[in-house]
């Protein structure tokens, strides 16, 4: 049995901290006591520390199921940087011999990251069956519920896969989950008895701001104004890669800031460079899409702007959670133009097959068709012996669920009442008025003054085009810098 003292010791030795953040110790105590645990901790609260530390104190294999390859790679890198060499991600980018190499030497690893699709492959699953998984982690566990049957259905197999792995101790971790989503996660993983550690999701240092515009051009102008005047660094979210690229160009041209787009189409070299520039404060603003995870912690993000309405509050809360991880005053700004919800609705419905499509694809005897996501999706259910009726029902329910989620999101945008209280209610958390921060939201302070919030940029600290000698130097200087030849 692992004692609390041992946990503190490991925290000190490994991470150099003497205190746990709220929720961490509770989750670790539940896990070391042998209880499957669902941990809902706000973004930036250190969910990864829980399973990292668990691996350290128990010396067992920790298997982490994670939704995004980029996120997995970032997490492996972050572990490597901390000196943990026994970490790897099994991804679809690897060749067969590479995967086999890892699967044959599972015992050599402490932390392995996989996607649900990878884990449901026979060869991968059977390799893990022959080894002892000390802890199974379902990271971003809300995906099980919010993605559901229309996107990455392998998530639904995780309950069964868990049994096939001999029911290892399981940690389900997420930053955002309503009571309903929490129940859904536990039900789908077949762990109804799991302990729940739920921390308040609120981030009182983030001012919640919604602004409405009549025309696109007004919105663009406001974005330019915000980016020019707000304290950096900041992140702007878009619904499409195309828009993210366009606006990165526009903002580069129209503001004195250095801006770059960041999304799944970037090649790894570019992605690394943008990420590191941002980390090292050489880049002011990133124009991102939500599909792209940012696994590397950056504490001093001062603003998160949403140019489009996200399709649900879970995503929204997750994304604005990147602001103000250092506890300093920050702001989340949603720029809304009536009609924007149609983009969100379209994007959120686009993946859900309609009744006639389901019927059509069910009649097809053919297996997977390259590039036809819906055909492949229905084929997945046929293969797993679902009847057409079951699938019809489940997708009908899914469409309703997506619509409800969007309505709730729009409720946040439109409510004239306190935005923060709306969020509390949505995530089934109650708190009194006295727990609100002094500066709360745009419903309460409609003419928000960023100066009062201390969020206005102090100009001329750094010139554009001169992030730390980057651009004005000759190649001789760059080589001197690279190879430390100044001394």
């Amino acid at each position, binding site marked *: 049995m692992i004692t609390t003292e041992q946990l503190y010791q490991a925290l000190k030795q490994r991470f150099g901290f003497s205190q746990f953040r709220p929720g961490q110790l509770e989750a670790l105590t539940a896990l070391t006591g042998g209880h499957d645990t669902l941990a809902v901790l706000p973004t930036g609260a250190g969910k990864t520390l829980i399973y990292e530390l668990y691996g350290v104190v128990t010396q067992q294999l920790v298997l982490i199921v994670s939704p995004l390859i980029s996120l997995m790679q970032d997490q492996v890198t972050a572990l*490597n*940087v901390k000196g943990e060499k026994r970490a790897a991600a099994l991804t679809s980018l690897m060749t067969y011999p590479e995967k086999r190499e890892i699967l044959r030497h599972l015992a050599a690893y402490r932390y392995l990251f996989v996607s649900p699709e990878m884990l449901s492959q026979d060869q991968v699953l059977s390799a893990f069956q022959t080894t002892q998984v000390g802890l199974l982690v379902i990271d971003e566990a809300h995906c099980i519920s919010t993605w559901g049957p229309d996107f990455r259905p392998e998530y639904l197999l995780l309950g069964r896969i868990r049994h096939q792995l001999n029911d290892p101790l399981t940690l389900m971790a997420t930053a955002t989950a309503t009571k309903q989503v929490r129940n859904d996660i536990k039900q789908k993983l077949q762990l109804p008895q799991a302990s729940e550690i739920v921390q308040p999701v609120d981030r009182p240092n983030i001012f919640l701001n919604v602004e409405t515009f009549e025309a696109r051009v007004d919105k663009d102008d406001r974005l330019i104004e915000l980016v020019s005047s707000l304290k950096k660094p900041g992140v702007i979210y878009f619904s499409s890669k195309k828009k993210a690229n366009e606006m990165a160009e526009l903002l580069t041209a129209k503001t004195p800031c250095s801006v770059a787009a960041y999304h799944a189409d970037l090649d*790894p070299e570019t992605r690394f460079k943008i990420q590191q520039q941002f*980390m090292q404060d050489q880049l002011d603003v990133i124009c991102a899409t939500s599909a792209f995870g940012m696994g590397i912690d950056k504490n001093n993000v001062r603003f998160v702007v949403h140019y489009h309405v996200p399709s649900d509050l879970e995503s929204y809360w997750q994304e604005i959670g990147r602001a103000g991880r250092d506890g300093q005053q920050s702001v989340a700004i949603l720029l809304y133009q009536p009609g924007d919800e149609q983009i969100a609705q379209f994007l959120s419905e686009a993946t859900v097959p309609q009744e006639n499509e389901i019927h059509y694809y069910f009649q097809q005897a053919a297996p997977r068709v390259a590039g036809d996501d819906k055909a492949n999706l229905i084929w997945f259910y046929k293969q797993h012996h679902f009847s057409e009726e079951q699938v019809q029902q489940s997708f009908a329910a899914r469409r309703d669920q997506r619509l409800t989620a969007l309505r709730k999101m729009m409720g946040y945008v439109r409510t004239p009442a306190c935005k923060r209280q709306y969020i509390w209610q949505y995530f089934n958390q109650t708190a009194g008025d006295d727990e609100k921060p002094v500066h709360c939201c745009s419903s309460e302070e409609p003419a928000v003054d960023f100066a009062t919030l201390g969020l206005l940029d102090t100009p001329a600290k750094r010139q554009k085009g001169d992030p730390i000698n*980057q651009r004005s130097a000759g190649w001789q200087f760059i080589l001197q810098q690279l*190879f430390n030849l100044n001394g």
Partner: protein
Amino acid sequence: MDAQQLMLFLSPTAPRRLRVIENILVGKRTVSTLYWGMRYQQLPWLGYEKQLSRDEMNRAVADLQSRGDVKLDQTNATLTPQGIQSWQNLMQGRYQPKYFSVRLVIDTATLWQRLLLATQVVSEQSYQNHQYYPLQVTWQVKQFIKHWFHRFHRQELQAEFNTFWTVFFTQLPEQQALLMSRMLVGHQRPGETLGQIAHDFKVSESEAKVIVTDLICQLAKRISDCEADSIKSLLMGLNQPLVSASAQQTLQSYLAGTTLEKISQQRSLKLSTVREHLLEAAIMLPKGQFDFQRVLQPELVAEMEKRLAKTPLDAWQFKQVEDLPIDFWQFRLLEILRSKSTDDNH
């Protein structure tokens, strides 16, 4: 791929097949693609844009059409008089690669990944820093550099790398040296992206990509001539044959005098495949490395040439000679031979 890049693959004197241009860029090694790629002098671009989609290609074509630079006849593109003018301006104003043929014999993309990561590792080593985010590269490259560093890290890597880059940059035009040096990643230098460089040097991203690729080709040459083992070994295993391994095997049997039928039997290949192998070799290898005469008897060649004398090579039709005792593949071989023998400026 943007419209300007596509424009450069077109010809002011003859229509060009868009599918050939696309297949070359994607890297399809069919005989027909390779043959026309050779005729268009586009072979060095083989596999330059492996991810190129039909949509992207179509957008570039539509772009040129809407500007009035190009006319389409099905999927053949011809430059209009205005298009020819733009083409000439582009040829003068835009960077033209000079070393791309290196791409055919060296895996330059992997070399760049290795060199970039090695430079980062050495840079961090010069600051005695062990905790940093390494570049995200493929698993193979990561393993390679791990072993490489294990082998060389006691040597004067810092000095060797500094010398290597200094020598390389010194022999480049100043602007190109600056451009490439800004791509490099190291201690507290995240390096700049292609997009950022294009923006600062006031070129399009597609042109910046051509410049950088051409510089990487020059790097490959420089590395193979380099005396320092630590740097030279970065090329290990990256040489690639001009023709596929299987075609190479067919070619060797053929050069040893084995008949095509026998090769087909021995290697359990269709006769047509054996012929395709030989055509691939004939296209890709220097003329002297292929025995044309064994397939093309002099009398037959003389007869064909008599009939085809008045037709420019790219307009040759098999039906002009099909009553003679020859197969299409022999006809194609003659086309290849002719293409390689004459300095045809298409």
